[in-house]
């Protein structure tokens, strides 16, 4: 289980990016972090990944505090960030250095097959489209079989059709080992299509505005009325989080189920 306890982040320039974020994510759960630009989503993810240290509070995986990048936590950045001097296959096995070569190759081949890139192993990253590169970046993080995978708007630079396809790819990959997924997104549809819960963040300083369960069976039908209703709830909370003038009340979390009065 991923535990985030009273996490605060104040950047050296004085920006208070996060205030008192507390959140538990069960093993195997998929959580979407949504919120307006600048509300601290990337900051929160970087704290969980151990790439950056919180000012106060902490994040922990199965009770073990995360102070530096953790072997069981994978990270997918907003840009694919493939290493341009490594082939696609070498990029995927970048985190597998400890394994014997044969095992590495087996995992790489399987991963490429899973995301529809069989035969692309020998290509250079510059020879990939944006969507292909992002798929490689996702499997690069997944082949190490992390317990938790953090994704920072991994599909935001892609067109709608590609994005939908990659969301399906991600779900299929998730099915095999069921890692915990924490997915930052701008896209309400994406949150509803993938997540068990949508966490809506509110800016200045960043804090949790709403925690909305999405109890739809998988595979989800994007055209069903239930899907539309879940989208509406998240969208409404998002609206509230951005337009809300209130001085913030710690501990009080907006609940759409209770008829949310924002």
């Amino acid at each position, binding site marked *: 289980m991923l535990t985030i306890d009273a996490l605060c982040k104040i950047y050296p320039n004085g920006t208070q990016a996060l205030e008192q974020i507390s959140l538990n994510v069960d093993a195997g759960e998929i959580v979407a972090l949504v919120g307006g630009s600048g509300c601290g989503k990337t900051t929160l993810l970087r704290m969980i*990944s151990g*790439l950056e240290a919180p000012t106060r509070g902490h994040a922990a995986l199965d009770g073990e505090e995360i102070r*530096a*990048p953790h*072997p069981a936590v*994978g*990270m997918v*950045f907003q*840009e694919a*960030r493939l*290493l*341009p*001097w*490594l082939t696609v296959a070498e990029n995927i096995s*970048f*985190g597998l*250095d400890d394994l014997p070569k044969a095992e590495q190759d087996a995992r790489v081949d399987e991963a490429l097959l899973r995301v*529809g*890139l*069989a*035969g*692309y192993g*020998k*290509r*250079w*990253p*510059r*020879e990939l*489209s*944006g*969507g*292909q590169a992002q798929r490689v970046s996702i499997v690069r993080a997944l082949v*190490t079989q992390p317990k938790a995978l953090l994704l920072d708007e991994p599909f935001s*630079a*892609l*067109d709608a*059709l*590609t994005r939908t*396809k*990659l969301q399906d790819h991600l779900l299929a990959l998730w099915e095999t080992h069921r890692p915990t997924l924490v997915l930052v997104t701008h896209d309400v549809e994406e949150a509803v299509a993938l997540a068990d819960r949508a966490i809506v963040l509110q800016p200045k300083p960043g804090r949790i505005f709403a925690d909305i369960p999405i109890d739809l069976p998988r595979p989800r039908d994007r055209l069903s009325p239930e899907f539309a209703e879940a989208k509406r709830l998240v969208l409404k909370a998002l609206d509230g989080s951005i337009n809300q003038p209130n001085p913030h009340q710690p501990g009080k979390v907006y609940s759409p189920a209770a008829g949310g009065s924002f």
Partner: protein
Amino acid sequence: MSEATLDTSPTTNAQPQAARFAVFGTSFVIGLVLPVTAALLYEGAFRLGLVQARLLPPPSRIFTTLWTLAKTGELTTHVLATTVRVGMGFGLGALVGMFLGALTGASRNARRLLDPTLQGLRAIPSLAWVPLFILWLGIFESSKIALIAVGVFFPVYLGVMAAIANVDRKIVEVGRAFRLSRLALVRRVLLPAILPDFIIAIRSGLGMGFMFVVAAEIMGASEGLGYLLVDGQQLGKPDQILAAIIAFAVLGKFGDWLIVVLTKPFLTWQDTHQRGA
């Protein structure tokens, strides 16, 4: 980038070797058009008696001189002497430049300590060192090599320092996210990332080496291409001067080409707008 998932057939990514060679040949020939035409025109003008060739001998005479020098083995002696000097000066300057550049590029404290001094030294025109080097090291090889090394040092130092300092933070972060040790980070991320800039630094260093070998040899040497230049001037033989200049051009170009060819296999990943042109 939008057709992403639609094409799944991997295409062959290299042009056939022969085709690439033909492209190379064509651009080589195109590059020759201008100098060859100019040489032929001048040669023609000379044959027709349109120009006085006392100060600027026609190409045919320059090549005759070169040929004579080559036949007597003199050319080999001079080329060898120059090559050895450049090689040693370049080796020394590049090694020290790499080391200090890496140090100042990687550590802010080292940069604060060393860079101001080195930049101050860089502001001194390198030829100003010559009298001092001669006093310290004598007029023979050591002072020449020291001068060349100084010339090579600065572009290499600056290039390596800038390359390391400018490595993309985002790429380094990937290394951190995969928990690379400091050493592994250097080996698997930093070194490959700076390689293109490093090669450019080395190439400009070598260029400087050739510049300074001329200076060193003009100031007093009994062999070397620079000596051929001075000798040609004193004996009033412009054809010998031009022959030495041509030898310099060929030698310098060859050295540069060697670096490019030796490092090319490590740079096939590069994504530049010139690719394939």
